[in-house]
């Protein structure tokens, strides 16, 4: 069910809610009609060569970044020459121009960009800092994405995705986990993006973030009820817990020596199936699964180590019996 995002426009870039070291501090200073242009690639370009008149392999589909160098070059050009160069630049359908360091382009730049229908954006960040941030932001936006039905909680630092049919008790289990000091990332609808190759980042939708629906209570606000310590905005998914009604005919894992995984956007995530039955304290079982996952990450596999001990013991026993029989 991996899906492609709809068109991502310059306006969408301006409207992104980015904070702290992700903030792009962008504002539109000209060429407003160009805000509807689409950004289709994650890369950026600094149009130094193009301003110098060299247009071979011009990556015009990328966001064009004008730093101190490019701006100074434009300022230095004689007026006619400048016009000519800029008009040539804007014959290409570039998505938008970004001026860093709060630089102001010249008046004729505004004119030409406006006529060409290309937005001029400005940021107070330095060119290199802006480049790093925008690449990070765009690679997240263009990352493969999938929305799943489930609850994402952080348990002992492990991102646990609870899955299961409606009414099986995902939200109730998550509520219990929150009450025990763990954190809610998203309820009901979890958006997963695959970033940096094989990291699955899960988050909730902005509008309904950190709200939960509990049968009988309705929609509740977790931040207000449990405090800011009970939530987080996004978390890597490291374990999938599938809750299901106890099926007497089904064989559930009794040893746990084998590693079961589930495929999400091409990444294998450890997965455990937990049957629900009266008398089973699901939150405690989920907590234990998360603890066990941490142990595994540290290279310790409880079930395997246990079996190794059993094998050693059996071997010693058989040697002992053999020795005694020989005597």
């Amino acid at each position, binding site marked *: *069910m991996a*899906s*492609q*995002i*709809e068109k991502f426009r310059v306006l969408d870039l301006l409207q992104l809610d980015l904070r702290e070291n992700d903030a792009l501090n962008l504002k539109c200073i000209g060429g407003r009609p160009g805000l509807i242009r689409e950004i289709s690639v994650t890369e950026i370009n600094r149009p130094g060569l193009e301003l110098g008149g060299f247009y071979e392999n011009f990556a015009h589909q990328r966001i064009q970044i004008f730093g101190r160098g490019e701006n100074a070059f434009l300022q230095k050009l004689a007026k006619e020459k400048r016009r000519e160069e800029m008009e040539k630049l804007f014959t290409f359908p570039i998505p938008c121009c970004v001026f860093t360091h709060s630089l102001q382009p010249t008046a004729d730049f505004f004119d030409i960009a406006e006529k060409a229908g290309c937005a001029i954006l400005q940021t107070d960040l330095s060119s290199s800092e802006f480049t790093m941030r925008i690449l990070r932001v765009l690679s997240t936006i263009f990352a493969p994405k999938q*929305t799943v*039905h489930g609850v994402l909680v952080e348990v002992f630092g492990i991102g646990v995705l609870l899955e299961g049919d*409606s*009414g099986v008790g995902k939200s109730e289990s998550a509520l219990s986990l929150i009450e025990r000091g763990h954190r809610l990332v998203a*309820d*009901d*609808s979890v958006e997963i993006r695959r970033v940096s190759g094989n990291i699955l980042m899960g988050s*909730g*939708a902005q*509008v*309904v973030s950190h*709200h*939960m*629906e509990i049968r009988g209570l309705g*929609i509740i606000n977790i931040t207000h009820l449990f405090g800011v310590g009970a939530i987080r905005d996004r978390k890597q998914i490291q374990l999938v817990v599938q809750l299901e009604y106890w099926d007497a005919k089904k064989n559930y894992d009794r040893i746990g020596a084998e590693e079961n995984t589930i495929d999400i956007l091409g990444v294998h995530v450890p997965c455990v199936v937990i049957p629900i039955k009266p008398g089973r304290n699901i939150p405690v079982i989920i907590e234990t699964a998360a603890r066990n996952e941490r142990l595994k990450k540290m290279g310790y596999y409880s079930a395997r180590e246990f079996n190794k001990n059993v094998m050693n013991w059996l071997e010693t026993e058989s040697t002992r019996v053999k020795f005694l029989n020989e005597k």
Partner: protein
Amino acid sequence: MVERIVTIRNRAGMHARPAALLVKTAAEFESRIYIEKDSERVNGKSIMGVITLGATYNTPLKVIADGPDEAQALDAIEKLFENRFEEE
């Protein structure tokens, strides 16, 4: 599996009350029910999921039902949309 395109006809769009009504109807059926907007797909039995779609007035949505009572489920859901969720 059956699917049908429906359109939101109530002015306020898919806010909490229509979403609750939709989820309640969907939950009456055994079939799995999904609602799709553009390329986003959510579980039709999850109220938060349905609200997350951010479906506004005149948005076309695809309703997908899969299971033994899929045809009846689709009809019941379509009826809700036709009746504008009993709203303006």
